């Protein structure tokens, strides 16, 4: 979707403001929002792309007005509501009002270290040969899906070169609907002037990780 989250190349947000000796969290509610989102992710009731879409699929003004962990909390609330796990009246009441339905897994304290160490690998066996090789010239497709995608707007329609073939990986655009549909993933390098025009920095390039359905050969 062409949401506010897809902000590469936008102007007007001002300078980057690093904070000296920044703490990992800035408030206790951030700690809890972080941890409960990770723990609910571990239940298997949704996947990472559903999680991302729940955070980004909102009016741009709302997205931009929320802090990072506010977005996490809002996304988690949204997913819980959609799946009938927690309803709005329960959030308002601050306690459970309806019977729980069983979730696939509950992350126990004893399993935290193992689950974190295992991570969530997204590489999958290839079902077809890769269409492109390193060095191939490609064009990022000019598409505007209203649903979840990881093809940023600023590269759409632009020419790049395949830098590396990264294996077959879960495809976000279908994973958000519950189908992994693994596709070949490539790192594609774009020149600064190709992306930003004659005023672009000629000494800069941007490498973006793009799945095969996002690309077409350039001839």
């Amino acid at each position, binding site marked *: 979707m062409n949401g506010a*989250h*897809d*902000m*590469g*190349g*936008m*102007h007007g*947000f001002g*300078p*980057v*403001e*690093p904070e000296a000796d920044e703490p*990992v969290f800035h408030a206790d*509610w951030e*700690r*809890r929002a*972080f*941890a*409960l989102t990770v*723990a609910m992710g571990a*239940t298997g009731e949704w996947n*990472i792309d559903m999680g991302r879409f729940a*955070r*980004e699929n909102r009016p741009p003004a709302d997205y*931009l007005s929320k802090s*990072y962990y506010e977005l996490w909390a809002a996304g988690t*609330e949204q997913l819980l509501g959609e799946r009938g*796990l*927690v309803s709005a009246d*329960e959030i308002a009441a*601050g306690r*459970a009002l309806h019977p729980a339905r069983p979730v696939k897994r*509950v*992350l*126990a*304290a004893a*399993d*935290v*270290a193992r*689950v*974190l160490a295992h*991570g*969530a*690998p*997204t*590489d999958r066996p290839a079902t077809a040969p890769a269409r492109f090789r390193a060095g191939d010239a490609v064009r990022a497709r000019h598409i505007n899906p209203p649903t979840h995608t*990881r093809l*940023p707007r600023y590269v759409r329609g632009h020419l790049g070169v395949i830098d590396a073939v*990264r294996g077959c*990986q879960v495809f976000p655009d279908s994973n958000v609907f519950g189908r992994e549909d693994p596709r070949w*993933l490539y*790192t594609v390098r774009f020149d600064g002037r190709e*992306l*930003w025009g004659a005023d672009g*920095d000629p*000494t*800069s*390039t941007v*490498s973006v*990780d793009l799945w095969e359905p996002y690309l077409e050969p350039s001839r």
Partner: protein
Amino acid sequence: MDDAHVHDHDHGSELTDTQLRVRALETVLTEKGYIDPAALDLLIDTYETKIGPRNGARVVAKAWTDPGYRRWLMEDGSAAVESLGFAGRQGKHLIAVENTPQTHNLVVCTLCSCYPWPVLGLPPVWYKAAPYRSRAVIDPRGVLRDFGVELPPETAIRVWDSTAELRYMVVPMRPAGTEHLDEAQLAALVTRDSMIGTGLALAPQGAP
């Protein structure tokens, strides 16, 4: 006195809407048996005290001192990093990119906040915020200036936008005058920002 008293306490009436919603969420999830609050405590403790940029600094210092390890890191970042005990969530597919006098690398996630957790921990606020995400790809030199870094005009800048599940870490250049330092001393020169590409490794103490 009264004012000081009031502000010393965490009054329910002063909680923001967000604080209340997150608290309500945790209570409901716990009552329904979907989460184990002790697991939440452990997750928080892990990323506040155990997993952070000191992990990545050890990787870089080892790469600076051990050419075999450096080669392995550049060829198979995940395996080389796992060999030091750093693995897992948000880092199963880790790629190390190396700064040279000719090329400077800068890592961003324009779409959200993708970041190599096993080696750097959780990202700082600026990394997740709009100014960095919007400008890193269109004006990398300007972003570097915000961090007080001015590169020679002829240095090429490679920006890496982490749009998939690959996670990038920068191996900064080893500072001059560090030949006599051991791995632990070198690791102390490797800042978090130098592994994102918004900074350089620190000069050793006493260096000009």
